């Protein structure tokens, strides 16, 4: 068998980064949620909030650790597999990654120790500050890495000198055209992912009666967060799409599988895009809808893939990833509104809703991965749009070397993912102290009881 080492290196990168993003997608949101629990407890003295914190901080610690160790892999991967990227674009990528390490990684990692294990060693105030700094650090980290990713999608503020990227303006590099959209889209995605995780696990616990009031409070927090954020996310996503249309029209053409430039393009609900014949087989279309969504004019012009001959991304994968993201996003909106309606006031949820919420626990993961596949595969064949192609920066390893490590990573990640979900189930199955909790009690008695 003869595999192309270039393809293997790409699969390896995709595997590493797909595995990695699962955990920040939860911990970025969960960090803020935990801060919210702690603040609510400090304000109300309601023990349930403290129990909620104690249960979820365990899952946060595990998720955070998974994110850290899989993230270290990423920092080495650029050099081991894509040295050309650093040689050519290192003047942009290096500083942005550097600022991420200096401003965010140390902050979150250091104060995590206090947040997790220092509660009886520092004041409540210091603990709140530490929890804030951890949440802030995770978000800051997202800021820098998304800035770099967005620059690779829509590079600005640079010039080339002997094929090497040199920086003109750091403001234009950091705040490149797609950055604000991608940053907010991802941040909301993280919040939604964590909202569904806490709501889903809580629903699962409620179905098994393993916990009391704390679980209801958590579920409601998650549901309300999701109900508010889901529609906002759709709006932000739409803006993001319009931005992509302006700067990366080839990606949009692939997302919509528009082969020829046309006015009044239809939105394809379902199709099997075929790159050889440049057609969509079994297409189910909504007339004029693509033009309307993208240009807000039913007769607007949508550029087709024919304009980017040889330099457009693989169509079917981008097309389908986009549809998976839309479908999961739509489902999240429906379920969260249904749940918010049932949980309004002091109402309790019905069993079907609890089942639906537990089934949706990891829905955010699917949407996040699908969304990233759209944007990353949609950038192909470029690593930096219009500047540098992926195939020109790959390291010269044999397919046996890359294939061997790839198999190693896949086995390790499969095992770790199973262990992570297993640990979540294990923690969720245990009856919590909050079962016995009935009335609101004063905060000062809490510490002794725990």
């Amino acid at each position: 068998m003869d595999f192309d080492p270039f393809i293997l290196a790409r699969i390896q990168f995709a595997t590493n980064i797909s595995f990695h993003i699962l955990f920040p997608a939860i911990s970025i949101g969960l960090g803020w949620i935990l801060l919210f629990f702690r603040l609510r407890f400090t304000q109300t003295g309601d023990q349930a909030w403290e129990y909620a914190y104690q249960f979820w901080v365990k899952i946060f610690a595990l998720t955070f650790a998974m994110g850290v160790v899989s993230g270290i892999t990423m920092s080495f991967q650029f050099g081991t597999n894509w040295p050309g990227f650093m040689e050519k674009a290192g003047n942009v990528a290096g500083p942005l990654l550097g600022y991420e390490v200096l401003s965010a990684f140390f902050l979150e990692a250091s104060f995590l120790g206090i947040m997790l294990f220092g509660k009886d060693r520092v004041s409540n105030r210091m603990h709140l500050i530490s929890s804030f700094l951890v949440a802030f650090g995770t978000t800051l980290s997202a800021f820098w890495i998304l800035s770099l990713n967005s620059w690779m999608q829509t590079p600005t503020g640079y010039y080339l000198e002997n094929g090497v990227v040199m920086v003109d303006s750091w403001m234009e590099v950091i705040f490149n055209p797609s950055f604000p959209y991608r940053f907010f889209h991802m941040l909301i995605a993280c919040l939604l992912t964590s909202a569904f995780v806490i709501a889903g696990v809580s629903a699962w616990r409620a179905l098994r009666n393993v916990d009391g009031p704390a679980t209801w409070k958590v579920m409601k927090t998650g549901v309300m967060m999701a109900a508010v954020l889901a529609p906002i996310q759709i709006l932000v996503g739409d803006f993001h799409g319009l931005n992509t249309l302006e700067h990366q029209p080839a990606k949009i053409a692939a997302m919509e599988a528009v082969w020829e430039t046309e006015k009044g393009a239809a939105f394809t609900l379902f199709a099997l895009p075929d790159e050889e014949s440049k057609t969509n087989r079994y297409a189910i279309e909504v007339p004029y809808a693509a033009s309307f969504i993208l240009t807000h004019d039913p007769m607007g012009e949508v550029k087709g893939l024919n304009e980017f001959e040889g330099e457009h991304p693989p169509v079917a994968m981008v097309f389908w990833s986009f549809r998976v993201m839309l479908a999961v996003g739509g489902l999240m909106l429906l379920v969260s509104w249904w749940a918010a309606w049932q949980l309004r006031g002091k109402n309790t949820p019905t069993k079907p809703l609890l089942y639906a919420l537990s089934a949706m626990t990891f829905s955010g993961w699917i949407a996040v991965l699908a969304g990233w596949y759209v944007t990353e595969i949609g950038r192909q064949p470029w690593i930096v749009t219009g500047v540098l192609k992926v195939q020109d920066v790959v390291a010269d390893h044999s397919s046996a070397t890359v294939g061997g490590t790839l198999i190693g990573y896949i086995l390790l990640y499969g095992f770790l993912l199973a262990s992570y979900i297993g640990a979540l189930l294990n923690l969720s199955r245990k009856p919590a102290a909050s079962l016995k909790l009935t009335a609101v009690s004063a905060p000062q008695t809490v510490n002794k009881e725990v």
Partner: protein
Amino acid sequence: MEYWLPIIYMGIMGLALLIYVILDGYDLGVGMLVPLANEAEKDMMIASIGPFWDANETWIVLGIGVLLIAFPVAHGIILTSLYLPVTIMLMGLILRGVAFDLRVKAGDHRRGLWNKAFFAGSLIASLAQGWMLGAYITGLHSSATSLLFSALIAMTLPALYLILGCGWLLMKTDGELRNKAIGWARMAIWPMGLGLFMVSIATPLVSSTIAEKWFTLPNALYLMPIPMICLFCYGLIVAALNKPTMLDKNRSYLIYACTVAICLMASLGLAYSLFPDIIIGGLTIWESAASVKSLQFTLVGVVITLPVILFYTYFVYRIFHGKATALSYE
């Protein structure tokens, strides 16, 4: 600027990697010692490193980050040549990083499995790091001598980490576990000494550039304090292990501090031997440096954040000073 910036960055990179070795070194060392302890001791050992390991590991990310920021060309060459040991190290670090949490969260019947994973991950990462260091010092060649040399350092670095781990346990634990740590250190100190000795002999033999730098007058005289301090610290460790009353009261830090001094001396020696090459005999720091504008931009961040990082690292260690207590989120 074009002359000084790469030197400044080499200093920062060296500092980050030195801090990495002395901080993550102790928690990797403790990880390798875990199988020797009983269940309660295992918990206590892991509790002693729980609040710190994550931040400790961040220093290697900074070290590699600086390599990437300041010397992008060298970053590519070094990491591409070290592809397999890097990958193996990463898998080791992943395994032990998650084992911290999973050993208490995956259920009691899995605890044994994750304890083993914690040990194995620590050992694999330490061996791989030693190998990488050896390969780096020999200029990333793949001749038989350089492979042998890499293997030698791969065996030495874990022994050094073991001593750092024992030194840490002496400071952070009490009673029977502390006595055990002294016993473990007695076993690890000889391989560490032998390893360091062999490495010192082999380094000038393997690299003629280094030999030239070491054995010409007056350089050789200026360099004398390095082996002298190393020998003195090593002797002090051996003496303290033979007479543990030397470690009583407020002198628990002795072994850890002496090992840190050895690491510091070794890294000074290494920096002297390498300079101004970033890849020995291949590429100087100026040849592989990033553009002045990028280096300046990042330096602003480094100057502001590095002192802050050092300050809150100190702050965290203050909060968790003294003997370790059982880890609790409550």
